[in-house]
């Protein structure tokens, strides 16, 4: 059956010889033509299927992006949209010379680093814990991954109440545990407010790290780990010499993705503190929202473009650094 359908090696060789005997020179153009016309039809089919998606992405992603970029170079204000004159780089100059700029830049750095490092460490530990098989692991995984399904804004609202000094559960628990004697004004004290929003973001983002790292851990071959164990490698040695090198690419890309998202995510801060108290949790994207609320779309777009440029440069350096590490 197999030989009849697909032909044996001998039969295929015979057919090839026969083709050559019939004159490959004469047959080649016809085959090329057939391949070509088949390819065009094929390409059209593929294009036809892709077209709705391409149109959708262009219309809803790239067009608004270009439009936003275009607005950054104009005086685009809600108050009078009938006149949006070209102002060149004036919007960028306004932003860079604003005394708020260094403050939000510093806050953004604290927000990103303070969120990502604990997320990575805790996410890694959670993934390692879930890697082992135990009863009801599926249910436990679902519970751990649940926060990722919640909207960031909702998370911010929930934590706003949890960190409320007088009525919040955080102070209540700390006081019952004897850790504090008086309620801490989490969202009112400048230093504590940044800690509170970062804690909320860590809770929210740990899940993503855990999901990604757990998926990567599944690819680490058991045989290698078993062989290393037989050779006398302890748990820590296996972790650093086998597990982490195996999942290194996933770790690097997950950190990159989370840096981009955290940099771009104002919703938790916006819902919890609105950037306060007195601008102490104001990051670059909450600053952009502020301009949007004022109707100053030109300035908001300029901030958006600047954020994109910063992230682009960061990604380039990060990926170069990762490549060097991999080469070593």
């Amino acid at each position, binding site marked *: 059956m197999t030989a009849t359908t697909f032909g044996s090696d001998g039969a295929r060789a015979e057919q090839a010889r026969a083709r050559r005997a019939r004159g490959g020179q004469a047959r080649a153009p016809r085959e090329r033509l057939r391949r070509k016309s*088949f390819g065009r*039809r*094929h390409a*059209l*089919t593929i*294009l*036809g*299927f892709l*077209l*709705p998606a391409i*149109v*959708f992405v262009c219309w809803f992603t790239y067009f608004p992006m270009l439009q936003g970029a275009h607005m950054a170079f104009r005086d685009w*204000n*809600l*108050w*009078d*949209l*009938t006149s949006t004159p070209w102002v060149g780089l004036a919007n960028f100059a306004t932003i860079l010379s604003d005394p708020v700029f260094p403050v939000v830049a510093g806050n953004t750095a604290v927000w990103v680093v303070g969120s990502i490092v604990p997320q990575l460490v805790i996410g890694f530990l959670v993934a390692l814990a879930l890697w082992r098989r135990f009863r009801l692991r599926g249910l436990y995984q679902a519970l751990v991954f649940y926060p990722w399904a919640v909207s960031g804004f909702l998370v911010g609202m929930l934590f706003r109440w949890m960190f*409320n*000094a*007088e*009525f919040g559960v955080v102070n209540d628990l700390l006081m019952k545990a004897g850790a504090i004697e008086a*309620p801490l*004004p*989490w*969202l*009112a*004290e*400048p230093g504590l*407010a940044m800690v509170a929003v970062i804690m909320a973001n860590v809770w929210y983002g740990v899940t993503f790290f855990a999901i990604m790292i757990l998926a990567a851990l599944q690819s680490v071959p058991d045989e290698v780990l078993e062989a290393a164990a037989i050779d006398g490698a302890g748990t820590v040695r296996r972790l650093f010499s086998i597990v982490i090198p195996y999942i290194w690419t996933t770790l690097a890309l997950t950190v990159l993705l989370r840096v981009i998202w955290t940099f771009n995510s104002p919703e938790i801060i916006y819902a919890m*503190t*609105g950037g*306060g*108290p*007195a*601008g102490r949790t104001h990051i670059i994207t909450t600053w952009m929202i*502020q301009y*949007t*609320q*004022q*109707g*100053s779309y030109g300035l908001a777009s300029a901030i958006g473009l600047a954020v994109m440029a910063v992230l682009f440069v960061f990604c380039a350096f990060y990926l170069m650094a990762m490549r060097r590490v991999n080469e070593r």
Partner: protein
Amino acid sequence: MTRTRSQTRTRIAAASTAVAGLLALTACTGAGAAQDGTVNLQMVESLTNPARTELIRELLDEFEAENPGVTVDLVSPPTDQADPKIQQMLQAGTGVDVLEVRDSTVGAFSNNGWLYDLSDDVTGWPGWDDLTDNAQAVTEEDGARYYVPYGFYGLSLFYRTDLVEEAGFDGPPASWEELLEQASAIQDPQQNTYGYAFRGGLNGFGNVVAAIEAYTIDDLDVEDAFRLEDGSTIFAAPEAQDAVDTYFALFEQASPPSAVSWGYPEMVEGFTNGSTAFLLQDPEVIATVAQSTTITEDQWSTAPLLTGPTGKAAQPLATAGWGVAEASEHQEEAIKLVEFLSGAEPATRFAQENSLVPIIDGAGEDPFYSEGPWSSYVTMTEDPDTYVNVVQPRGVSWWTEWGQKADQDVQAVLLGDMTTSELLDSWDAYWTEKYAAEE
């Protein structure tokens, strides 16, 4: 066979593209006149909440019953995103016939030519004369009228009758000074009881300005309540210093320390859960407090807005209403809908069920307003010489920018990063520059 399959695939792809295109076109097509002559209006609300949406829907059903051939679809975006969505609809010129216009959005919307001027229409409405003078006057600017108000948001003092009595006072405070005295006496952090629900977070500047206006009321330009009659700003007046010192003393002596970040939800929660004795808020909070399971009906009431040293208060009335889109293809029906909603019965019902100061003349005489927590509003309405209605410049293009700056400055004072006199200097400089640029 291969060719046939390939052709089929190509046709499927083409058909999919065509269907997707048609769907997109269908989605882009706005509502309008159906083939049977039925007119379909799109109405968008801004200050959305479920109970309010239900009420508006009921009123729209009545309108539809009275106007066969006209149907109304109500669009209710979440409040936080509503105004940007309305703006996008107006900018696109489709999808909206009737909309909720606020005193803070009317300037931008009308400046861009997105709103229909109702001034020629309203004067011919049979029910127009039923509206209060305030309601008729507040939306008229430079001869144009871009919306008809559905009610007013005014401030009154919510207070705990039991705590005031226990502290040895005969009644609620009438002035800012008395509020400071009573709130300080009630303050007892050890018992988790605080005097005043201080607003340090979003829109916290509003109460600071209300206090300054009460202290400068005798010289205040009531048509532009950020200015005195001599043209200078209220923040430069000597009385303003006393006002902010008294106001911020409320935070120092009579408020929870975390009130630096308290916005609307925390303030209302602080009052409804029994933690704070005084709350300065709009009447819409009446319904929320009435639902409290912690404090009973006889434990709270409202008092008129607080007066300054000369015994007068400035009531900064905020408002919103219904307007018609300039680009509406069914303006006649849209205007008819706004007229219906502004009529005595629907407008009174809307104001009562949303806890608003009514726009209909005489509606305040309804027992609904003259009893319980609403009685303070009647007191204020009946004594306009003491409780002076003033208009703040909420329609200027920089209002949101001002609010953001002012909120940040208020928090800076609360955190000790700025003095009250620096705050007043900064606000005076800000408004002086803006007024100068405008002129």
